């Protein structure tokens, strides 16, 4: 069956869709920021260049803030702007606006900041290896069923895994347009963002009582986000609003690529230590002890939430009787890390999936057999004591093994590699991802959605969830229309605007379709039964006087779902999505280079609403994960040396393997989370394929030729 076409495709292909940089309003000033360019220390002096008329510029610093100089986040510790203390590269010192962009850029490039430097922690390992860098709350998760072992034939093994920063690299850099209406004392922000209501909180925080009303709207097009436009927009919108308020003119800031790369949030680097007690013959894991650490950067911001998801995914798709997990944040003098597709799960799953293959390699047993032996099955308990009621992981694994011809290739490649210089490898990995906010998050959020049936027969959907490329607005409209059965062009999602859109929560956590979409569908069903129509078009035409009519619905979680945030016991996620992946690689030992040839993905994401869009999510997620696995790297000893895309190696068309995707159990009544799971598992599958090809255990990402060269040297010694 053909998938319904995306509503936004034509406008995006012809240049008609407006992205933020396409917005202009009368009297608009160009805005920009000056940020810290040392890692730690103090700002001592700001020297503006001579030859400019300072009267033409609007300049704001921390001292101009009428409200609070704190970005609202789960942990309120990051200032919008700094005037003295420097904790990381990329802190905003000044906002500057001018009518002419060329003059503004010249002025900024000639402005000199004098600093006094202090010692800084910028190296990921230096940060994560030293417990003195720990900050914030330490999280614990303990789960003990009756011991499944007797003391004979036991083997204890410890392994340490590291992952690096990853840049979201959405193609559209971040930007904000702030318009201040003096009469109404209203601040309107239009911008690139995933969470309009977070931005509203942020602008209200920085402006305090200086403005009466704050309205946030997303730009018509949002050019990719992947988590990168989850929390940084709070800061950028705050500074842009401050500029517009002081200038009393509209101000637009669009970041340059280099600045976007250097100062916005990235994926957290991680160190994960796994100690497992196993049967020394077959690798059955009886007990596991995981120490999960994230480099949060200079401030905690939303890192505790990432940490939380990380520890809740740390045992992956395995059933282990005794589990002890500790999660901690570490501080470094780098820009705060934030949300990125996967949100702590990819780091945890990389460690667990790599560990499984290391064990299989040590015991000379098949990684597939080891997985089957330890696999999480329906009825088993997760470390949170949550009983898994619907687990199709086994089906995913069986199907991916069958599709890829894993078993035969595994032995064929072993033979092939005995006589060939260029090696072949095949690797497995499992994935799981909890849909929606963690624990009681959805209970607290109480998402609200609204559907308006217009007089002219149109159906308008009001949700706070944005269209950032993932296809949400097409898919959500389709879910509503599965009840109304109108022509697709009659059902639309309105561009989110906080003055008319109810708060259906942020566009994060694989929750847009799973929480908001299913809620909309429930509302559409209610509307249908309340109005009692057989044909909605007819019904509106015959009862013109009762339209427009507006309907709202609030999310009510399953009353049986209970989660204890202290002990981390209970239902962490009402529904998990499951996946299994096989990756086939060729490794050239002369070039120390891995080439991914094929990648098979079998996923259970429940009901698939729009197959074309869903496939696009998996393809895109897989390729991002391959970039993380192989080439993407930001920090080279110390602060980032990036000047642009030139030295951040993103996957291009020639780098991609043949990617096969199959969705299973799609007859489920519920559409589950999909956006993030494709990021969770491909990296360890590549790494495991490399282990099969070469016998070299590398427990770190990315698998660059430099890292492989170094590891090969070690393994030869």
């Amino acid at each position, binding site marked *: 069956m053909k998938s319904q076409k995306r509503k936004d495709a034509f406008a995006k292909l012809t240049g008609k869709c407006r992205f933020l940089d396409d917005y202009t309003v009368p009297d608009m000033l160009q805005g920009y920021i000056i940020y810290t360019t040392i890692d730690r220390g103090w700002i001592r002096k700001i020297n503006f260049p001579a030859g400019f008329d300072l009267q033409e510029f609007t300049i704001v610093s921390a001292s101009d803030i009428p409200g609070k100089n704190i970005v609202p986040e789960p942990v309120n510790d990051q200032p919008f702007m700094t005037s003295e203390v420097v904790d990381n590269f990329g802190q905003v010192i000044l906002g500057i606006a001018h009518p002419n962009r060329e003059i503004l850029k010249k002025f900024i490039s000639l402005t000199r900041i004098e600093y006094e430097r202090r010692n800084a922690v910028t190296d990921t390992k230096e940060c994560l290896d030293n417990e003195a860098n720990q900050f914030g709350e330490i999280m614990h998760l303990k789960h003990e069923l009756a011991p499944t072992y007797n003391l004979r034939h036991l083997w204890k093994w410890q392994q340490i895994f590291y992952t690096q920063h990853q840049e979201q690299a959405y193609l559209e850099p971040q930007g904000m347009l702030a318009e201040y209406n003096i009469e109404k004392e209203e601040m309107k922000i239009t911008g690139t963002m995933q969470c309009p209501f977070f931005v509203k909180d942020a602008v209200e925080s920085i402006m305090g009582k200086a403005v009466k009303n704050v309205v946030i709207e997303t730009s018509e097009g949002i050019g990719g986000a992947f988590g990168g436009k989850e929390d940084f927009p709070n800061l950028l919108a705050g500074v842009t609003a401050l500029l517009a308020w002081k200038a009393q003119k509209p101000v637009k800031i669009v970041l340059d690529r280099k600045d976007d790369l250097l100062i916005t949030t990235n994926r957290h680097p991680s160190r994960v230590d796994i100690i497992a007690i196993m049967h020394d013959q077959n690798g059955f894991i009886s007990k596991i002890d995981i120490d999960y650490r994230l480099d949060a950067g200079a401030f905690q911001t939303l890192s505790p939430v990432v940490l939380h998801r990380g520890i809740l995914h740390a045992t992956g798709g395995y059933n282990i009787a005794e589990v002890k997990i500790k999660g901690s944040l570490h501080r470094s003098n780098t820009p705060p890390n934030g949300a990125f597709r996967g949100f702590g799960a990819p780091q945890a799953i990389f460690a667990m999936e790599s560990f499984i293959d290391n064990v299989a390699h040590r015991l000379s047993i098949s990684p597939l057999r080891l997985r089957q032996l330890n696999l999480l099955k329906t009825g088993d308990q997760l470390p949170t004591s949550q009983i898994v009621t619907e687990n199709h992981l086994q089906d995913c694994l069986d199907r991916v093994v069958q599709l890829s011809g894993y078993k035969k290739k595994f032995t064929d490649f072993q033979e092939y590699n005995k006589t060939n210089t260029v090696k072949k490898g095949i690797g497995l990995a499992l994935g799981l991802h909890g849909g929606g906010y963690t624990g009681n998050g959805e209970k607290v959020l109480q998402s609200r959605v609204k559907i308006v049936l217009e007089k002219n027969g149109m159906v308008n959907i009001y949700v706070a969830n944005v269209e950032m*490329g993932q296809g949400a607005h097409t898919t959500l409209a389709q879910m509503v229309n599965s009840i109304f059965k109108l022509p697709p062009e009659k059902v639309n999602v309105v561009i989110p605007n906080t003055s008319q859109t109810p708060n259906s929560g942020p566009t994060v956590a694989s929750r847009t379709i799973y929480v908001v979409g299913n809620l909309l569908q429930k509302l559409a069903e209610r509307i249908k039964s309340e109005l009692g129509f057989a044909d909605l078009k007819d019904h509106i035409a015959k009862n013109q006087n009762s339209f427009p009519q507006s309907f709202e619905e609030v999310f009510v979680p399953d009353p049986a779902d209970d989660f204890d945030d202290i002990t981390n016991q209970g239902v962490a996620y009402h529904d998990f999505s499951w996946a299994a992946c096989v990756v086939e690689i060729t490794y050239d030992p002369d070039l120390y280079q891995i080439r991914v040839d094929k990648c098979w993905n079998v996923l259970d994401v429940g009901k698939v609403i729009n197959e074309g869009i869903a496939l696009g999510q998996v393809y895109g997620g897989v390729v991002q994960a391959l970039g993380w696995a192989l080439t993407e790297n930001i920090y080279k000893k110390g602060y980032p040396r990036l000047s642009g895309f030139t030295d951040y190696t993103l996957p291009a068309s020639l780098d991609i393997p043949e990617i096969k995707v199959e969705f299973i159990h799609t007859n489920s009544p519920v559409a589950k989370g999909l956006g993030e799971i494709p990021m969770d598992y491909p990296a360890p599958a590549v790494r495991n394929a490399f282990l099969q090809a070469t016998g070299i255990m590398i427990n770190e990402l990315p698998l660059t030729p430099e890292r492989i060269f170094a590891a090969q040297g070690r393994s030869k010694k």
Partner: protein
Amino acid sequence: MTISFLLNNEPVTITTEPMRRLLDVLREDLKVRSVKESCGEGECGACSVILAGKPVTSCLVNIAQVEGIEVLTAEGISQTPAGKILIDCFEETNAVQCGFCFTGFLVSCWHYLTTTPVADAEAIKQAISGNICRCTGYVKIIEAVQLACQRINKEQSHEIS
């Protein structure tokens, strides 16, 4: 400096600094929205245009170089027969995601389709290797171009017979 060129088949004349980027002149002076700035250093292809018949990144071209030359952007391409076929195929395969890079892809793919319409995945990969997309993993873009190649070849064989 006064510069005249053909923009999407319309003659334009502007007076500006010769060293300004074609990208800026198109966006700021001529209000051509399809041309996007993403990396600003010729790496990503979001600002691609057809210049004298070849796809180039307009962030690396100075306006002075364009004197007397024909420039084609996604706006112009979308009016051509091959452009229309491509747009249909991108829509039908649900290849578009955030779309910020897609006007650039339209330019590269249109060039491919109008010069070598061969539905070969490897050749298409080569043709779009100067365009970065972070959303799609390229799979559906390649699929859409293959479909467009098949369609254009079918149309041409119809014309001959």
